[in-house]
């Protein structure tokens, strides 16, 4: 309570009287801060972000002591960068706050009234009555051109006073709204920075899997808190892979031959061989178990994750384990796709490509169950130590390939689904404020806003309309607008046709 009291009693006005405060409220300052951020971003594109310094040095990276000193591989988490972002945020917050006060006070409206300088003078030459002209013009603006009146009060109703009318969404408020929304995006980034963490998990079919993150958010980390096991489990009911039949294109790589294709001297062809299976989708049928009950079921796929208790689970990849039989040996050799396998009696090592299984969506619209197979290669090292690979072809399940008189059989395989998961409380705020910022920005920029200050007086006993028009938004077209206005004014001032019976 005392804190609240102190806050209330604090002399806020003194801050607003400070010079530095006004510097922070200036547009120039924001351009400078934006420029400083650009400088950091550029440095961040030069040095690979998120890399390990050892990898960097191993890959031949230069300026390593410089990189280590300034922490250039983690540039966007360094205090100096965060401070720059904070300064821009403060700038934005002060700007929007001051703008808010200004918009509320409608000061600009009053100055416009006082400093009325007409940019158009349109004679209303037929109708002799000033009062009628005043009412007529008012009607046109209101009914035909759909303007809102901004000034109220009887003293403003009279002929000769400046009236201010407006049409369209107020661009000032829209500008204000998207700047505020951008400020809220900064809050979202901060929440991500402090509280987000991510990790991965491998699920084998039909096994209850506990979720024990190894990662911890910056916030928890800074308080020395370790990761905590989540209070639910996941079961993978099924892992599904789908492939598209994708015929390779016979198309030259070198530029001259490509020109030859353009000239019609060379044909392009699609080559159909069965090996060209292109991944279409990976899906995991998941069940969330809390206590002893399944509380949620969902089949996730890439681009369609599972959300549960603030954590999002993504289909990231998969693992494939193979069991290989050699001749009639009942003991099966276990290996993983992509790894090399030593087979007794075979000179070299066997290497298996991705196991193709699941459904094949063929070009002609039909589907087919794939008989599981792996592309197999033999890796041999020659006497000088150079390795040499030889394609052995497809190893289909329960069929064999012969290498060095050994029969290699793919007996069994097991697939596991690899998920990544992430907790990020910044995302909902970013969704809301991002969409709000884009909406307001689009309305402001693509829309149309008109403000007119006008007065009616007379010169040489002829009433005339003096007006000043201000437009914003790409849809606003001053020329067209004046044309429309003239058209309506002409209609209003048309002499009554005496020949036509009333």
């Amino acid at each position, binding site marked *: 309570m005392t804190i609240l009291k102190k806050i209330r009693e604090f002399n806020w006005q003194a801050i607003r009287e400070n010079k530095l405060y006004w510097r922070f409220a200036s547009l120039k300052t924001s351009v400078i801060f934006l420029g400083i951020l650009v400088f950091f971003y550029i440095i961040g594109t030069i040095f690979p972000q998120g890399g390990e310094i050892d990898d960097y040095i191993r890959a031949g990276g230069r300026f390593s002591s410089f990189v280590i000193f300034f922490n250039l591989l983690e540039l966007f988490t360094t205090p100096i960068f965060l401070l720059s972002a904070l300064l821009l945020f403060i700038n934005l917050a002060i700007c929007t706050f001051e703008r808010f006060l200004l918009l509320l006070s409608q000061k600009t409206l009053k100055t416009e009234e006082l400093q009325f300088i007409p940019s158009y003078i349109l004679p209303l030459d037929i109708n002799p009555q000033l009062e009628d002209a005043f009412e007529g013009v008012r009607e046109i603006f209101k009914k035909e051109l759909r303007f809102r009146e901004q000034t109220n009060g009887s003293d403003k109703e009279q002929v000769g006073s400046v009236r201010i009318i407006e049409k369209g969404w107020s661009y000032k408020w829209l500008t204000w709204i998207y700047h505020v929304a951008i400020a809220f995006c900064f809050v979202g980034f901060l929440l991500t920075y402090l509280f987000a963490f991510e990790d991965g998990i491998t699920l084998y079919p039909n096994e209850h899997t506990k979720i024990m993150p190894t990662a911890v958010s910056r916030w928890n980390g800074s308080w020395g808190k370790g990761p905590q096991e989540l209070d639910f489990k996941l079961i993978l009911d099924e892992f599904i892979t789908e492939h598209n039949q*994708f015929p390779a294109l016979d198309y030259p790589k070198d530029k001259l031959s490509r020109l030859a*294709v353009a000239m019609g001297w060379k044909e392009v062809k699609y080559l159909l061989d069965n090996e060209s299976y*292109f991944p279409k989708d990976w899906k995991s049928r998941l069940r969330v178990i809390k206590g002893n009950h399944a509380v949620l079921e969902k089949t996730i796929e890439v681009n369609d994750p599972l959300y549960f208790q603030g954590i999002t689970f993504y289909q990231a990849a998969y693992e494939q384990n193979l069991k290989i039989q050699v001749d009639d040996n009942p003991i099966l050799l276990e290996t993983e796709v992509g790894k090399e396998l030593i087979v007794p009696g075979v000179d070299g090592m066997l290497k298996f490509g991705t196991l193709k299984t699941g459904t094949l969506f063929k070009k002609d619209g039909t589907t087919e169950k794939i008989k599981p197979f792996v592309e197999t290669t033999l890796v041999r090292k020659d006497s000088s130590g150079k390795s040499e690979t030889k394609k052995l072809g497809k190893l289909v399940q329960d069929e064999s390939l012969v290498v060095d008189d050994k029969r290699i059989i793919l007996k069994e395989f097991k697939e596991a689904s690899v998920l*990544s998961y992430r907790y990020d409380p910044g995302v909902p705020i970013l969704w809301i404020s991002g969409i709000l910022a884009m909406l307001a920005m689009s309305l402001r*920029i693509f829309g149309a806003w008109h403000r007119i200050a006008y007065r009616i007086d007379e010169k040489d006993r002829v009433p005339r309309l003096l007006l000043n028009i201000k437009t914003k938004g790409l849809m606003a077209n001053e020329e067209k607008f004046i044309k429309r206005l003239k058209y309506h004014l002409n209609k209003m001032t048309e002499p009554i046709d005496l020949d036509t019976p009333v």
Partner: protein
Amino acid sequence: MSNLETLLSRDAFLLSVDIRLFWFVALIYGASLVLYIIHLVTKKTGPGKLATNILWFGVITHAGLILLRTFEGQRAPFQTLYESLSWFAWSAAVTYLYVERKWKDIYLSGILVAALSMGACLYALLTRSPAVEPLSPPLQSWWFEWHVVLAFLSYAVFVVSCSIEIVYLAIKPSLKKGLGTDFGINMDNLESFHAQSFRLALFGFPLLTFGIFSGAAWANEAWGRYWGWDPKETWSLITWTVFAMYLHSVSIPKWRGMPASIFNILGFICMIMTFIGVNWVAKLLGIPSLHLYAM
């Protein structure tokens, strides 16, 4: 012939039409570029006018090409870099022709636009595969589609904005000195010609904002991380920030002239970096990229 073989030979036929038409479009943009350059050198209106008419022809043919591609792939034709470069080239030319209608006999800014449209077509044709590829699982996203369409559209709009800016900066000094130019620009129309540059950047800015937002939304759905600071992402953020600096500078009375113009041109340079030069500086300094995605 089996059903499948018929399908494949049909696809190969369509693809070869696609490729040849694309070369033809590049050639038309090239012809238009040459005529714009002749206009620059001779200061005659005729070649400028012809260049614009040819560019119209190119744009209409190109629209046919984009439709053909849509038919070939049975999907929105913006997914591979081959396709999005084509979209970019077309959008830049269309944007230019749209704003150019209002000017009488000002053709100079067509040079950069025609050059970039042609360049984008040739870059796609010479370095990318034209195959109508199935999309890998991460790319099968509504967000990804919008991401490409809007980001590339905004880039196209920025190209036109920058080309007007360059012409303005090049011509203004001689006009101020009272030296007439013969390019249809005079003291009366100079500022309203230049105003288009700001309007275009203003138009492009929300598009790029959508582009970045949809990219982040897509990354969030596909990889579970809305931002990863890889060079391509970061360059698009740089482009966005530099254009924000430009739009703000225009509101600062003292900066409205030259400094603002420089920001517009810088924004354009950043955009080109996003496209092709992403790791160029790193390579120049001999710094390795550890990221797979950083093409």
